């Protein structure tokens, strides 16, 4: 394994600016790493030629003393982002062969800053899942195996993005987070996973799942790297009316300053029955770390926490059933053989969508249909208002919240595919944040008894990513997590 692939985004940036390495050398090292990691199944569409070509352009700009914030940095993006001229399928058969004629806003910002595309990353079909097993490209395998040799999930739905960063195939990557799809895979793979506030980044060109919850997210190996990347992808875009027209701070320089006097809330409702002791212990330990660094720890209550999950699994499928109506076999993607137009719709969608997507479309149509709308959809939106109000109330008393990211470490592939509810319940700590539109981050904190990573989650006020990142840096500094998975996948 090349040494270069071990470097953080921050270190690569310095080395490129000082011309210790060329962008092409950096790109080649990562292209090689991707090429050898087929066993992880993290990358669905590698783009090695494009990566080298973009790196050559970066070298020219660097030689001229120019270069953007990410000049020469190779990275991958989840297959949910539309990338011009590169297949973008949301890992769904229904978008087989779809090559977007346009670029998503967030990825456009990456290329303008000088980043180089290594490839599209595997995910659950239309980002619907928590284990990256439902997509058309098959399951992603977690680089971590712990003390056993079972194949574990890398989490989901951005499992490919998390596995690729954990396995040193790329220093950073993009995912999307609708109900925890960046934070949960980060926790399972020992990486940092940042979900910005709703509206912080444009959703233009992200294939829609649940529009009031979807947000681009970042996978990285340090809080600093995630701050650098956020500075690049954040900002208003007139093509997404829900993107916020507010200033984007310099997140990297905002990391300095420590957390003295910061008020950290511990939401008591995040302690749930059946949660392993190791997670509860880690939570207490992390609170201690923050206290040692000068923060004030305050127990707080978010009384509607346990209702967030069922509300989410009403709202998200409702929005999905509407968003996915566009896949009709006429404008793009797959088209089934059929005699009439109704049969064309029905057969195309039957052949194109997988089981979990169909389940959510049916759920969504059900809760939106006449007779059930008030009892399910409207009720869920009222509960959502209560969940958001809980957060508003506690953020009058504290600056950030500290909680676990997941109620367990990574589980075995296939373990929860037959038990839908068990899989949904794993999202219990991540979903409330999306309902309220808040920023949150998962930071790797330790290895558990089985040698698997565990993550701690911090939740911030809406649009206050700067404070959130500073608190995350404090957890990172105390945790000193520097474990690296053994490269069993590399021949």
């Amino acid at each position, binding site marked *: 394994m090349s040494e270069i692939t071990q470097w953080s985004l921050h270190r690569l940036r310095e080395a490129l600016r000082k011309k210790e390495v060329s962008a092409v050398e950096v790109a080649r090292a990562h292209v090689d790493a991707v090429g050898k990691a087929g066993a992880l199944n993290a990358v669905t569409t590698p783009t090695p030629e494009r990566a080298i070509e973009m790196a050559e352009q970066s070298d020219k700009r660097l030689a001229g003393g120019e270069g953007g914030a990410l000049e020469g940095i190779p990275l991958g993006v989840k297959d949910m982002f539309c990338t011009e001229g590169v297949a973008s399928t949301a890992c769904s058969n229904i978008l087989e062969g779809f090559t977007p004629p346009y670029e998503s806003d967030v990825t456009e910002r990456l290329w303008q800053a000088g980043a180089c595309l290594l490839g599209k990353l595997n995910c659950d079909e239309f980002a619907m899942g928590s284990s990256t097993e439902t997509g058309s490209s098959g399951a992603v395998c977690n680089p971590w195996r712990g003390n056993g040799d079972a194949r574990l999930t890398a989490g989901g739905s951005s499992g490919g993005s998390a596995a690729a960063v954990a396995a040193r195939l790329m220093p950073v990557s993009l995912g999307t987070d609708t109900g925890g799809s960046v934070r949960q895979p980060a926790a399972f793979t020992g990486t940092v996973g940042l979900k910005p506030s709703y509206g912080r980044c444009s959703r233009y060109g992200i294939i829609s799942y649940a529009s009031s919850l979807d947000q681009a997210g970042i996978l990285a190996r340090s809080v600093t790297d995630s701050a650098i990347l956020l500075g690049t992808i954040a900002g208003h875009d*007139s093509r997404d009316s829900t993107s916020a027209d507010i200033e984007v701070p310099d997140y990297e320089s905002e990391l300095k300053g420590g957390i003295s006097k910061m008020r950290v809330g511990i939401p008591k409702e995040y302690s749930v029955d059946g949660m392993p002791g190791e997670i509860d212990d880690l939570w207490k330990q992390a609170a201690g770390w923050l206290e040692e660094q000068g923060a004030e720890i305050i127990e707080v209550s978010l009384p509607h926490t346990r209702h967030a999950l069922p509300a989410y699994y009403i709202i998200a499928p409702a929005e999905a059933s509407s968003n996915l109506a566009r896949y009709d076999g006429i404008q793009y993607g797959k088209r089934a053989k059929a005699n009439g137009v109704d049969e064309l719709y029905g057969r195309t969608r039957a052949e194109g969508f997988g089981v979990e997507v169909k389940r959510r479309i049916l759920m969504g149509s059900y809760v939106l249909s006449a007779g059930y709308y008030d009892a399910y959809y409207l009720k869920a939106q009222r509960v959502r208002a209560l969940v958001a109000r809980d957060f508003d109330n506690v953020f009058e008393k504290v600056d950030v919240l500290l909680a676990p990211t997941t109620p367990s470490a990574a589980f075995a592939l296939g373990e929860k595919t037959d038990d839908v509810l068990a899989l949904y319940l794993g999202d219990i700590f991540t979903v409330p944040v999306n309902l309220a539109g808040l920023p949150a981050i998962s930071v790797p904190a330790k290895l558990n008894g089985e040698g698997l990573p565990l993550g701690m989650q911090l939740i911030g006020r809406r649009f206050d990513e700067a404070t959130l990142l500073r608190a995350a840096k404090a957890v990172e500094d105390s945790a000193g997590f520097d474990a690296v998975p053994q490269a069993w996948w590399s021949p």
Partner: protein
Amino acid sequence: MSIETKTIRQIAALSRLHLEEDELEQYREDLSQILDWMGQLESVNTDGVDAFTGMGGSLLEHARDDSTAQTPSPDVLLSNAPERVDGFFTVPKILE
């Protein structure tokens, strides 16, 4: 709560989703189980609570200039169509 097969059939039709008989039964079971679990929301007191409708802020703040812009050419827009004739998307014959 147990959903009837005919309800699933109706929902699938609304969703323009063709399902085989065995799939209908599987989704009937899945949805019944999930809706049972969602039933817990009934116990939440939401009297006087307005339904969540968005993240705040007025869309009018973001009204863009009323100016002309270049739209992609028909060739670009049709480039991903599974079937096309000349400059058009095609659908199966609708009228006899």
